[in-house]
């Protein structure tokens, strides 16, 4: 695995390599798809496990993760890249990877719908996959408050109290243990 990362480092500029809990490498946005292509075609990472995004709202960017699997080495390698986080209703844009794996299409459809990240060339990317006529902020973005939305829309039943479990249990159930551990 270290050898693969060395090979990659010769060709692409990696800003970060972590191997504490599985191998993850970070590259620049413009390199991401070509790096993934290289990993697939040369290093044998043929199996696309998932494509997903993380919303780092404080740093104002999206992290995209391509998780690849090498069936020969039986190891996973995550490729991270950061793209600019646009303010809704503007959409962030990323290059599509559907030409490498047909399965990537679905992940990109979901990312477009749930995060508002557009993949311009990906087939059917503009068609909704999960939601129907959603006209709010894409729900997986951190600035979308699902509790507020639910309370406004779906008639919450009265009498339901929500307690923060930490304080509730500290006061009611384990007064001593709770204090000890804080």
């Amino acid at each position, binding site marked *: 695995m270290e050898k693969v990362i060395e090979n990659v480092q010769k060709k692409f500029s990696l800003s970060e390599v972590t191997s504490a809990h599985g191998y993850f490498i970070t590259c620049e946005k413009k390199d991401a798809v070509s790096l993934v292509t290289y990993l697939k075609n040369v290093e044998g990472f043929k199996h696309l496990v998932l494509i*997903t995004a993380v919303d780092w709202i404080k740093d104002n960017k999206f992290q995209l993760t391509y*998780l690849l699997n090498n069936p020969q080495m039986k190891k996973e390698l995550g490729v991270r890249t950061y793209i600019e986080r646009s303010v809704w209703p503007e959409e962030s844009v990323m290059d599509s990877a559907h030409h490498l794996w047909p399965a990537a299409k679905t992940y990109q459809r979901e990312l477009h719908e749930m995060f508002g990240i557009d993949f311009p060339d990906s087939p059917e990317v503009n068609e909704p996959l999960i939601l129907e006529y959603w006209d709010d902020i894409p*729900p997986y973005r951190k600035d979308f408050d699902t509790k507020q939305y639910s309370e406004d829309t779906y008639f919450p039943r009265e009498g339901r109290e929500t307690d923060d479990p930490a304080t509730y249990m500290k006061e009611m159930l384990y007064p001593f243990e709770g204090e000890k551990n804080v």
Partner: protein
Amino acid sequence: MFDYGEKNRELFPETKSDGTVDIDLSSGKFTKLWHGPNHPGITGNMSLELTLLGDEIMESKTHVGYLHRGFEKLMERRRFINNFPLVCRVCVPEPDFNEYCYAAALEELAGIEVPEKAQWIRTLILEMARLQSYLMWIGGQAGSFGMGMVGQWTLWARDRVLQMFEELTGGRIYHIFILPGGVRNNLTEGFKGRMLETLADVNSILDDVERVLFNNAVFKKRAVGIAVIHPEWVDEYGITGPNARAAGIPKDVRKDNPYVKYGELDFEPVTGTDSDIYTRARVRFDDCRMTTGLIRQILDRIPEKGEFKAKMPSMLHWKIPAGETYKKAECTRGEYGYYIVTDGSGYPARVNVRGPSYTHAVTLAEKMLVNTNLADVAGTLVSLHTYPPEVER
């Protein structure tokens, strides 16, 4: 004698240069069929939009989202330990794989060592979950071809396994038994004997099913040579689990990246060659048989003494250092994975669930169903063992 040879393509509409058919609904040659979500032949609450020419499917589109609850969003609002009741509900027939993946990912990030005995009990729970899920699936596969009897028998056997779950965990469907640091409880007294009895019942039912279903001439006629997955598709479409193994590619996370105690167990992944509905059914059935054997091995080797839970910090104030990891397990449908990102607070920054049905039900099914018969839709979907909640979560 009655082989009509190649289909008379003159009656068909124009095919384009890439082999796809030009679908013009206004020509009156096509029928649009909304297959589901209220349809007994569809696995769960999802729907297929089929375009038919006669009995043949020209285009298929999968529509999911009927079961979307926004788990990944909800998990970001809850503490790590509060998420356990949520994760098991991602996939209803076998919740334990979710619990295991989530717990294992947290342990990895927080650096918690799981005791020996807890690992054995986890292996046992995971195999029992696999067994009950397979038993339900066999009934579904037989039922999709109109043989309801097999489903009755296997569901009885599944209920027997669920009773054992109930004894161990207190729940029939959702167990919430695997927690970070170990499991919730020790084995009950006399559990081994009762489990062996149950396994004997299950095995006798499996023998019956083998006789009635797999040696059935009509079942063979319906299932052999239908809905073939080409081995090349396996990497392209991200096919895992029994679907890949039936195509001759021995992909099994239990063997490839042994987790919990699978490294110490003696087993070989079942593979097939033909990759049609019959082979996939056969691979799953043999896998089910193998699972009963694995449970016997586990019961023999499970240590009597030992801790079943590691010493954990107070769960309510549990903060996990920043990091990201991907943990996977082999469920009945393939590779099940949790990708977790933490930022050092008491809440996860992002949880992404990778269900095997994600590619099986959407991209693969859309490709496979083209040019099959309408009568084979249910059988094909069930043989892929798709399950919608893990697609949309």
